[in-house]
């Protein structure tokens, strides 16, 4: 009787070991189980570095070459003092103007030579009426929050935001018409700060 009991006990132990080894094997096959280790904090996120990078980004976005086409009203801005655009062209639903006052009726695919001539790009436009992406009058806090909000940034996730630094119309800011100043950073410096801001957590500066 005792012998039978020992045999049963041994059998149970063998089965249990087999089960444990099977489970262990399956962990090994699929890699470590998340619950087996302590999560290492994400060192990439750094609110101080992110905010510092955004201050550089903000200096560019608030420069006339960027802000003039991100007005709070429906008329674009012009010049170094960001005055209302002569002739009062209107944004229109798609941001491309209205009637005989479409942006590309004057703004050509390239800069027109000469002082005070229309600068150019093939897709010259404002943000559309349903996604105005206003820069004018925004604090750094407000602008940072707006830029990462897909409901206010054209549905862009962080990856798309990173890509947006190389958008053709964005880069046009660094190819201004004659007599107009470039933004305060080079495009390469801007892009570096833009990506750093996003990758370090896209933190907004304090209000």
């Amino acid at each position, binding site marked *: 009787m005792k012998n039978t009991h020992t045999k049963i006990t041994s059998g149970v132990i063998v089965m249990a070991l087999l089960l444990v080894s099977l489970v262990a094997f399956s962990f090994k096959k699929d890699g470590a189980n998340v619950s087996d280790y302590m999560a290492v904090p994400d060192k990439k996120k750094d609110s101080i570095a992110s905010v510092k990078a955004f201050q550089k980004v903000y200096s560019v976005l608030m420069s006339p070459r960027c802000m003039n086409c991100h007005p709070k009203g429906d008329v674009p801005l012009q010049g170094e003092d960001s005055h209302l655009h002569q002739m009062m062209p209107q944004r229109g639903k798609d941001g491309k103007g209205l009637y*005989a006052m479409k942006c590309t009726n004057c703004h*050509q695919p390239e800069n027109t030579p000469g002082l005070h001539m229309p600068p150019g790009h093939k897709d010259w436009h404002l943000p559309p009426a349903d996604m105005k992406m206003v820069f004018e009058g925004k604090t750094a806090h407000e602008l940072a929050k707006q830029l990462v909000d897909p409901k206010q940034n054209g549905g862009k996730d962080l990856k798309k935001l990173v890509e947006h630094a190389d958008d053709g119309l964005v880069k046009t800011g660094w190819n201004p018409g004659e007599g107009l100043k470039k933004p305060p950073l080079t495009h390469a410096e801007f892009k570096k700060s833009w990506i750093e801001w996003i990758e370090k957590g896209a933190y907004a500066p304090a209000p």
Partner: protein
Amino acid sequence: MIKLTINGKEHTLDADPEMPLLWAIRDLAGLTGTKFGCGVAQCGACMVHLDGDAVRSCVTKIKRAVGKQVITIEGLSDNNNHPVQQAWAEIDVPQCGYCHSGQIMAAAVLLRDNPNPTDADIDIAMAGNICRCGTYPRIRKAIHTAAELQQKSLK
């Protein structure tokens, strides 16, 4: 050689692709209804339609017009009977007349996109067309008349 289609007619021009469309229209194609005003996209006197858009031909290079339809004041209608032209004649809008081919081309685009414009719509659409004789009240009146004529012609 550059080929341009102006008022439905193909023109083969010996011209630099960078030449302003206005020069090609006036000096090479001989269509002088379109006027040179400021030369810097500020006044609207040189307005023509490029695939239906009211571009300022003084800053539009001819290379941009290749493969597209250019319509000038001469090609807006067969017998000067576009509703805007009829209204202009009826109201006797022009004084010196220099800016009015541009004014008419702008108004034609407005009425295509907005067949029944308000005064505010007219102000928005025509803000880029300057008239130094100050015929603006008559321009506004004529556009309302043209809207009525256009609606009657569609019935």
